[in-house]
């Protein structure tokens, strides 16, 4: 067919429509996306370091902990990277009108406080091999013992994010559930890395296995080069054109 001049807007759209991770992570409201980031294999030393019985809600001074206690059983966690002056950060970040989740608060106040590792070790080095410190907002473990659960709930973000939480299944035995309303369960297997949207849909977790479920949660700048490339590769795998 003979080339015909087409309107500039359409021409630009056709020629310049590259993948935009802001559109993918914010606008689409995808419930999850499996990433191919390689953090290596988590060994027993890592697992022992991440394991904790520290109550996550107490650590973050959640309001109404007693009133809502029936909704959570043994939701524990350990901070690995975040604001150095954590109490000052909590005071400022808790003053808002609504409860926003911990990842969102750490993103929002990233320039206001000095952030760093609370301890450097093989875990911090392994995460830094993929994501540099200046692109990290929060790194923590979530530990859910057998029979632990978190009721269906929805989290809220200050910054309108969707897909945002990098979720590494360090120890994930059969019987664990991470459900997203209307979408079934996230198909997580031990060692997987997922980008999860905990802001658009009600979701819930339960450990129905006989072992602790241990997850690394990372809030990071998604434009960080390795993350960005992985998001685009994953998106293309899920939604790209399939060639014969």
């Amino acid at each position, binding site marked *: 067919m003979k080339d015909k001049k087409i309107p500039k807007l359409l021409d630009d759209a056709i020629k310049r429509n590259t993948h935009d991770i802001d559109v993918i992570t914010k606008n689409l409201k995808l419930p999850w996306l499996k990433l191919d980031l390689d953090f290596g294999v988590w060994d027993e030393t890592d697992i022992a370091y991440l394991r904790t019985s520290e109550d996550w809600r107490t650590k973050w001074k959640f309001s109404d902990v007693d*009133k*809502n206690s*029936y909704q959570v059983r043994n939701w524990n966690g350990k901070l690995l990277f975040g604001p150095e002056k954590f109490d000052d950060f909590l005071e400022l970040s808790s003053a808002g009108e*609504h409860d926003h989740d911990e990842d969102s608060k750490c993103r929002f106040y990233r320039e206001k406080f000095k952030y760093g590792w609370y301890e450097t070790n093989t875990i911090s080095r392994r995460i830094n091999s993929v994501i540099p410190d200046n692109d990290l907002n929060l790194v923590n473990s979530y530990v859910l013992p057998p029979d632990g659960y978190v009721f*269906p*709930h*929805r989290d*809220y973000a200050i910054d309108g994010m969707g897909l945002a939480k990098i979720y590494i299944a360090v120890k994930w035995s059969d019987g664990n559930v991470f459900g997203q*309303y*209307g979408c079934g369960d996230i198909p997580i297997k031990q060692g997987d890395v997922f980008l999860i949207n905990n802001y*658009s*849909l*009600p979701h819930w977790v339960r450990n129905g296995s006989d072992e602790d479920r241990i997850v690394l949660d990372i809030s990071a700048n998604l434009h960080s080069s390795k993350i960005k490339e992985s998001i685009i590769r994953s998106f293309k795998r899920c939604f790209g054109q399939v060639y014969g």
Partner: protein
Amino acid sequence: MKIDIELRSDYRNTKPICKIYSKKTTYQVVVDKEQLFSRDFELDEKDTLNIEFTNKDGVDDNVVYLDRILVDDIDIQHFIYEGEFFPEYAPDWLKEQKELPPSSYKPCTELRLKGTWKLQIKTPIWKMIMEKWIQDER
């Protein structure tokens, strides 16, 4: 479907009486200082849980408190504040008012006037709760 309601009341001599009903099921309960109401209701897919305070005694100043509601064994803690109370003002008292009082109160978990507290419910309850979260645009 089972509905459990934890009620409390204040009174000196006149225990509050409430009619608790859906479209197809009605019960009456005399509310003690602390009262656990637990009954089976026939519920339509879209229904209304009504709690009607029928014997408000202005002299005794009896009051009913709605502390907790479970429908189908699910605590609807987050949605009890969606309930709206429609008071029935005494006609003579109403005529004397220069400014009309509100026709309803929401949120309201203390029934201090004769009237009916209404909560719209949809079954299955777990889905109703999920759908409300999805629609929350805060």
